[in-house]
């Protein structure tokens, strides 16, 4: 293994592992920070490439958290995907496992409700930051903004399946509408 690859893998793990422990409310909340690091600070990919990877992660089978595995793959191949997966989900999983024995006690603990109620609005704000980051990265033309808005509206007000919407947008582009 070359020294450069090792250094890249170490940098990837150093970005993702600490985020694992603050990814409250799920993996989507840390998206702006990962975007800031891999596009802005490290310059590993462009804004548009990041948006492409997110689109792939949404369309491909697997939980959304695999976006970060895909980012790892883009940065350092198969090893990058493995390192990113373990760095992002490993530390939080160890914490979850450690709390397993106490989980019933946690559930009834008097502090659980205020902790959950206090974290939730912060997580909501971070979700909006993720959406804002993605719209900025994905939408380069007025037509793209229209697609984003229509998909959001269909998701909110109909029971349209996400995969159908993603494929519909792909078909729209292929027929030259976008």
């Amino acid at each position, binding site marked *: 293994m070359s020294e450069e690859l090792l250094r890249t893998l170490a940098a990837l793990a150093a970005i993702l592992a600490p985020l694992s422990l603050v990814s*409250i409310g799920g993996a989507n909340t840390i998206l702006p920070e990962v975007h800031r690091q891999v596009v802005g600070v490290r310059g590993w990919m462009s804004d548009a490439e990041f948006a492409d990877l997110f689109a792939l992660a949404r369309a491909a089978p697997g939980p959304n958290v695999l976006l970060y595995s895909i980012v790892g793959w883009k940065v350092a191949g198969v090893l990058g995907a493995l390192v990113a997966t373990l760095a992002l989900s490993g530390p939080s999983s160890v914490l979850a496992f450690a709390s397993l024995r106490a989980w019933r006690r946690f559930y009834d603990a008097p502090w659980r409700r205020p902790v959950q109620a206090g974290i939730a609005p912060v997580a909501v704000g971070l979700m909006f930051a993720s959406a804002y980051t993605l719209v900025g990265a994905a939408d380069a033309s007025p037509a793209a903004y229209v697609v984003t808005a229509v998909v959001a509206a269909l998701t909110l007000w109909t029971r349209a399946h996400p995969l159908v919407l993603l494929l519909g947008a792909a078909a729209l582009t292929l027929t030259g509408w976008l």
Partner: protein
Amino acid sequence: MSLGGLFLGFFEIALSSSGGALAPAYRILVDKRGWVTAREFSEILALSQVLPGPNIVNVAIYVGGRYHGAAGAAAAFAGLLLAPLLVIVPLMVLYAQSGENELVRGSFRGVAAAAAGLMVATSIKVALPYRHSLRAVLLASLAFAAVGLLHWPLLAVVLVLAPCGMLAAWRGWL
């Protein structure tokens, strides 16, 4: 169930979770396999939301760990996150090879715009229950502005805002 069963159960959840993992998780864990009851599922989910980490990964750790300890947690983790890589990596390779193809690039522009729309809708959905609480809206707005608009490091923002939120909730202000 066996370790292999856990691995396969969570692999099945992973493969059916384009566009959100929790709905297929409920269907497979509660309805289809009966590994946890509906009440246990909501308890596990509530706790997953308090602890850091992707919710579905924490659910896998709880269910795997409850039945088979550390080995069970590892089997569920591998089924959920590592097995799908076998499906996704070939897709990535195709994507990389088609990088110069104008048609493929174009269709990605559409899918990326649509994926951003899914995220916008998800944000609005999770925000709706808080729309009547001015303080919750303020807290969410601060988090959005700090991370989304000002690009401040997430770690610092969470470490400041989360305790503020917890204190506010504890004092009954939220």
